[in-house]
């Protein structure tokens, strides 16, 4: 019993959940607008895309290191298929397959350089990101285009609607929410119930040990970046369909907030640690800060300051915890040696 509580207390997720609750109650007491159906639905809607991206960031950080290419991969591939859809009129599933293929190719490029040459993943993904940026804006002009007719059904698909009341505006939950839920279930099953999932954590924790234990480190790492490319494309498509248009510029720079979110959720940048619950909670907390600060009368200009402070504090707490646990470990080692 006490062991269980201790384990729970040591988890970042718990603290994030507490912060979310406290913040939510404060905002509601101040404004009376937080626990309204429309606000909650809006919040759920606003975490869809970022929590899909968070999967990319989680997989990359747990196994290898930073991946900052997912927003531009998403932006470029979505833009390409929207353009193709407009000009050629290909059916939607073919277009989605094309987008996934583009994402997979980008992921292969990332994986190739990271696995084969052992380059720093931040630098590699930064390069692919700028290459995608150059292609999206240079070769393809990168203007805002509307969602093509093939995707109209998906773009208009809402699974939940909150009617407008006198106190609050209406809100609707987009069908992409289901996509996100399915992706999380899939990743959950793979990470927690398969050998591959165990390998993802193992190679991030200690690569040499993982190799000796018989995991195919290189193949798995390569696979992770290909999967990241695919996830990025799905996230990007959802985003464009929710906005009913696509402008690659809107994707640019989206990685920072996602990385911040997963770090808050307890993912360690040094590898081997991180959970899906943490991903969702971190994303939710940041979405809350972005959406709800204005409700308590804090100017929208302060948004970035708050996000910055949250990242710094969250990262510092995690770092201090990590050093402390390492110190305890080394004390135990010493005692064991004597």
């Amino acid at each position, binding site marked *: 019993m006490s062991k269980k509580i201790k384990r729970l207390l040591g988890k970042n997720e718990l603290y994030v959940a507490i912060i979310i609750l406290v913040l939510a109650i404060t905002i509601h007491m101040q404004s009376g607008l937080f626990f309204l159906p429309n606000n909650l639905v809006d919040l759920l809607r606003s975490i869809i895309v970022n929590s899909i991206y968070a999967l990319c960031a989680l997989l990359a950080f747990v196994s290898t290191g*930073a991946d900052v290419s997912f927003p531009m991969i998403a932006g470029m591939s979505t833009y390409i298929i929207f353009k193709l859809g407009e000009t050629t009129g290909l059916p939607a599933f073919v277009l989605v397959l094309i987008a996934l293929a583009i994402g997979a190719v980008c992921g292969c490029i990332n994986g190739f*350089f990271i696995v084969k*040459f052992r*380059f*720093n993943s*931040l*630098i*590699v993904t*930064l*390069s*692919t*990101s*700028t*290459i995608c*940026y*150059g*292609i*999206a*804006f*240079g*070769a393809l002009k*990168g203007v805002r285009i509307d969602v093509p007719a093939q995707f109209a059904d998906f773009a208009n698909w809402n699974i939940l609607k909150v009617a407008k009341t006198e106190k609050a505006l209406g809100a609707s939950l987009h069908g992409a929410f289901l996509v996100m839920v399915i992706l999380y279930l899939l990743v959950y099953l793979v990470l927690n119930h398969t050998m591959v999932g165990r390998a993802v954590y193992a190679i991030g924790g200690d690569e040499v040990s993982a190799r000796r234990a018989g995991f195919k480190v290189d193949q798995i790492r390569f696979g992770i970046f290909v999967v990241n490319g695919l996830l990025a494309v799905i996230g990007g498509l959802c985003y464009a369909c929710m906005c009913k248009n696509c402008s690659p510029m809107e994707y640019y*720079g989206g990685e*920072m907030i996602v*990385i*911040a979110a997963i*770090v808050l959720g307890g993912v360690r*940048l*040094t590898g081997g640690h991180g959970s899906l619950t943490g991903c969702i909670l971190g994303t939710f907390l940041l979405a809350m800060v972005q959406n709800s600060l204005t409700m308590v009368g804090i*100017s929208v*200009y*302060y*948004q*970035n*300051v*708050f*996000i*910055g*402070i949250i*990242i*710094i504090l969250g*990262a*510092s707490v*995690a*770092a*201090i915890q*990590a*050093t402390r646990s390492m110190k305890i470990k080394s004390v135990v080692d010493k005692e064991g040696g004597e």
Partner: protein
Amino acid sequence: MTAKRKSGINSDFLRMLIILIVLFIVAGVTRGSAFMSVKNFQTMGKQLSEYGLLALGLSMAMITGGIDLSTVYIANLCGATSALVMQAFVSEANPDGSLTGILIGCAVGLLVGLVCGCLNGILVSVVKVPPMLATLGTYELFYGITIVLGKGKPINAVNNFKSFAKNDVLFDMVPRPFIIFVVSAVILSIVVGKTAFGRRIHLVGVNEKAAAFAGIKNVAVITAAYMISGLLSAMTGLINLSKIASVKADFGSSYVMMTILIAVLGGCDPNGGYGEIPGVATAVLVVQVISAYLNSIPQINNYYRQALYGVLLLGFMTYKYFRNKAKSSR
């Protein structure tokens, strides 16, 4: 590596120098007088100061085994605070800003840069936050503060300060920002290449634990490296303020990628321990020449430059990988 250092010239610097000369010849032959004009060189000299000093700062962080993603936003924050201080000194007698106001403004800006760098350094060395994450957090913070300072709008420079970057000195030919860049690069080269401090930041980058056992105060060394980066960023902020006449919170966000490219081209190892300033400074020139060359060809869209930088970075790292491999198997 020690042998290389003794010879005084390192191979990264030499390689960049050769590439630079080749680029000049190619540009001169294919674009002729459009490229080889005094005006073009002056523009290049002014332009490279927008990111050259940032790249030098980033390389300091990279040598210690870290990275500094916040440089661009430190620059903007410092520009914004300086501009506000200078505006505060505007009176009826001096509608274009007084000299004391400008001097105090510059001092405050540089101080803010040092404080920002110090914050980065403490987060990395004392709290032990991974450098990428620490500077990502401060990047967001500095960006946010700049927005708050300007209330979401650009902040204007006082008129008297605008002329600083515009006036050319040295036979009315060489722009001031370029001189600042060269002087900073030379000073930093000496600091990093010839002093005990320079040797220490390399050692910390190679192996932090070993450095600590060798009696090096890691916290002080790393913090100092990030503070230098902050100071250089602040100088960039002041130059930009004078040149562009206003500060925007999101100015130069694409320079983050560019500075990393320059640092790696210049011979810095992203994993730390390697890198010399002359190489980085020459890499700044190389990137500026490429950029100006592409600019002089109207058919090439500006955005292709970004794609090219990405390809260049990957290509160059691959080249280095194979060269190191060939060297170690010999």
